[in-house]
C-alpha cells in the first residue's frame, strides 16, 4: 500500500459532526470562571454576582439563537442528557395521559436507547421509517398518532447522513393533535436557522461541543408551561428543574459559541454548502461506483458528506485516511468497533456490504478549499488500492461484466 507516503504531510480534520475544537475566543471567555470567579451562582454573597450575570447572559444568548425566552433554557451536561431528559421527563410526567411515544428509526442512540429503557418500563414506542434519502414520511407520522400518544421526537438533522427533516410541518401536526414535540437539534444547531416559535417546537436538545463550545455542556429548551419530570433530581438550580452546581465556565462557553455560530450562520451556510458540493462532485468524478447517502442541497446539512464505496469496508478507509493525516468517521463514532452496521444506513434501505463501506466527512469553520483538494488527491487512490484486494469488488465487477 502506498498510504504511507502521505503520512503527516498534512492534517485535515473532517470529523466536525463528532466534535469540534473549542474556539480560542470561546475559551478566552470561559477562563475567568475557573479559578477567579468560581463562586457558586446559587449563593447570595456578592462574590457570586459576576457568575450569576454570566449565567443570565449565556441563557439570553441561547434564547436569542432559538427565538425563545431565557426562562425556557435549561443547561445540561450535553446532547445525551437533553435527549434523555426530554424523553424520560415527558414519559414520567405524562403517563397519566398515555404511554405512547413516537420517534424515528434514524435517531441518535441517546434517543433510541432512552426509548428502549421506556419500553422496558411500560411505555409503547413507534419507530417511523424513512425513505432512501433519510426523510420521514409525514403521513406515516400522522397515522401513528393515537389518543395515548404523549410525545413525538424527531431529530432536526441526522448525524450520519445529514438529512434535515421537515420540522416545521411536524411541529404544526403535533400542535394540531395536541402532542408534545421534541427535536434533537444537536447536529443542526449553529448550521441551519432554528426558530422554536415558528416551528412549534416544545422541546429542543443541543450540545455545545458541536458548534465550537466546550464538551460536557448542553441545553434543553422547554416551552413555557410544559410539564416535565426532572431527570437530575437534587438541589434547586435551574429553577428547580435541573439539579447540580452549575458548570459556569461550560455554560459561558456554550452561550458564547452559539452566539458566534449564529452570527456567522448565513455566510458559513453558503461557504460550507459550496465546499460540500465541490467535494461531493469531486469524489463522484474521481471514484467510480460510489453512492452518496442522504439528501441533496437544502435538505442536507451544509457540512455533511456520507458516501458508500462499493467493495471497501469503512474502517479500512478511516485507517488509510488517518495514515494520510485525514480524520474522518464511519457511521456514528460510538458504534465504531462494533460489528453492527449503522442503524441509520440500514434504515435508508442499504444492504449490509454498502452500510459497512460508508465514510462520513464532516466539515466546519476551519475547513478550507485546500482541505478539499487534499482529500480529493488522497481518497481516490486509497479506494482504488483497497478495492484491488477486495473479494466483494471482484464479485461486483464480475456481475457488471455479466450485465454487459
Amino acid at each position, binding site marked *: 500500500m502506498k498510504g504511507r507516503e502521505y503520512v503527516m504531510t498534512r492534517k485535515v480534520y473532517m470529523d466536525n459532526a463528532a466534535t469540534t475544537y473549542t474556539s480560542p475566543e470561546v475559551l478566552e471567555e470561559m477562563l475567568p470562571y475557573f479559578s477567579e470567579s468560581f463562586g457558586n451562582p446559587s449563593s447570595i454573597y456578592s462574590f457570586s454576582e459576576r457568575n450569576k450575570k454570566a449565567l443570565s447572559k449565556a441563557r439570553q444568548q441561547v434564547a436569542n439563537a432559538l427565538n425563545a425566552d431565557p426562562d425556557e433554557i435549561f443547561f445540561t451536561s450535553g446532547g445525551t442528557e437533553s435527549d434523555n431528559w426530554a424523553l424520560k421527563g415527558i414519559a414520567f410526567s405524562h403517563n397519566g395521559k398515555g404511554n405512547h411515544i413516537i420517534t424515528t428509526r434514524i435517531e441518535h442512540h441517546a434517543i433510541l436507547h432512552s426509548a428502549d429503557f421506556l419500553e422496558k418500563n411500560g411505555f409503547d414506542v413507534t419507530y417511523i421509517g424513512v425513505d432512501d434519502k433519510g426523510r420521514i414520511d409525514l403521513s406515516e407520522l400522522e397515522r401513528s398518532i393515537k389518543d395515548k400518544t404523549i410525545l413525538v421526537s424527531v431529530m432536526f438533522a441526522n448525524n450520519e447522513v445529514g438529512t434535515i427533516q421537515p420540522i416545521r410541518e411536524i411541529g404544526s401536526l403535533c400542535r394540531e393533535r395536541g402532542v408534545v414535540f421534541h427535536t434533537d437539534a444537536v447536529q443542526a444547531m449553529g448550521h441551519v436557522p432554528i426558530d422554536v416559535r415558528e416551528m412549534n417546537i416544545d422541546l429542543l436538545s443541543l450540545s455545545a461541543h458541536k458548534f465550537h463550545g466546550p464538551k460536557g455542556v448542553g441545553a434543553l429548551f422547554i416551552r413555557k408551561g410544559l410539564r416535565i419530570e426532572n431527570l437530575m433530581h437534587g438541589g434547586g438550580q435551574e429553577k428547580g428543574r435541573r439539579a447540580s452546581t452549575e458548570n459556569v465556565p461550560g455554560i459561558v462557553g456554550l452561550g458564547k459559541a452559539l452566539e458566534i455560530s449564529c452570527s456567522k450562520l448565513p455566510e458559513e451556510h453558503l461557504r460550507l454548502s459550496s465546499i460540500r458540493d465541490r467535494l461531493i462532485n469531486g469524489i463522484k468524478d474521481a471514484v467510480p461506483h460510489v453512492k452518496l447517502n442522504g439528501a441533496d442541497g437544502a435538505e442536507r446539512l451544509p457540512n455533511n458528506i456520507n458516501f458508500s464505496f462499493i467493495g471497501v469496508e469503512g474502517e*479500512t478507509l478511516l*485507517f488509510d485516511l488517518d*495514515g494520510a493525516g485525514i480524520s474522518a468517521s464511519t457511521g456514528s463514532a460510538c458504534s465504531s468497533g462494533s460489528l453492527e*452496521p449503522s442503524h441509520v444506513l440500514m434504515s435508508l434501505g442499504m444492504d*449490509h456490504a454498502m452500510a459497512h463501506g460508508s465514510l462520513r466527512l464532516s466539515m466546519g469553520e476551519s475547513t478550507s478549499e485546500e482541505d478539499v483538494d487534499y482529500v480529493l488527491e488522497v481518497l481516490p487512490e486509497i479506494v482504488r488500492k483497497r478495492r484491488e484486494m477486495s*473479494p*466483494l469488488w471482484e464479485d461486483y465487477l464480475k456481475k457488471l461484466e455479466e450485465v454487459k
Partner: protein
Amino acid sequence: MYSEKVMDHFRNPRNVGEIENADGIGEVGNPKCGDIMKVYIKVNDDVIEDIKFKTFGCASAIASSSMATEMVKGKKVRDAWELTNRAVAEALDGLPPVKMHCSLLAEGAIHSAINDYRNRNGLEPWEEDKVHKAVMEEHAH
C-alpha cells in the same frame, strides 16, 4: 487501538491477490458482519507452496489475513491446518477483544481452502473443532 504489527500488516499486507489455477480456494464471512475473506492455495508435495488472499473487512481482518497467510506459507498442509487463530493474534502482538473473530475468520478461510483442496483430490475433509464451528456458523457465507 491496534498494535504496530497489525498496522504494518494492514498497511502493507503480504500475499494479496489471486492464484490462477489454484489447488484450493476458500471463502468465509459475509457482508452482514462486514468481513469476507477469500484464500487461494497452491499445493505441491503436500506443502503449501503459495498462498494469496483477498479480504473485505476492517483493519484487523486484513492484518489477520496477511499474517495468517505468511505463517502457513511453505508449511505442510496438515501443519497449516493446525494454525490457530490464537497464534495469528499472538503473532500480531494481540488484537482487541471485539476483533478476535477476525483472526478466527483467517483460520477459517485457510481451513476452507485446505478442505477444498482435499475434496478436489478425493480426500475426506478434515473436521473443525467445536469452538471454530460455532463461530463460523455465525459468519456463514
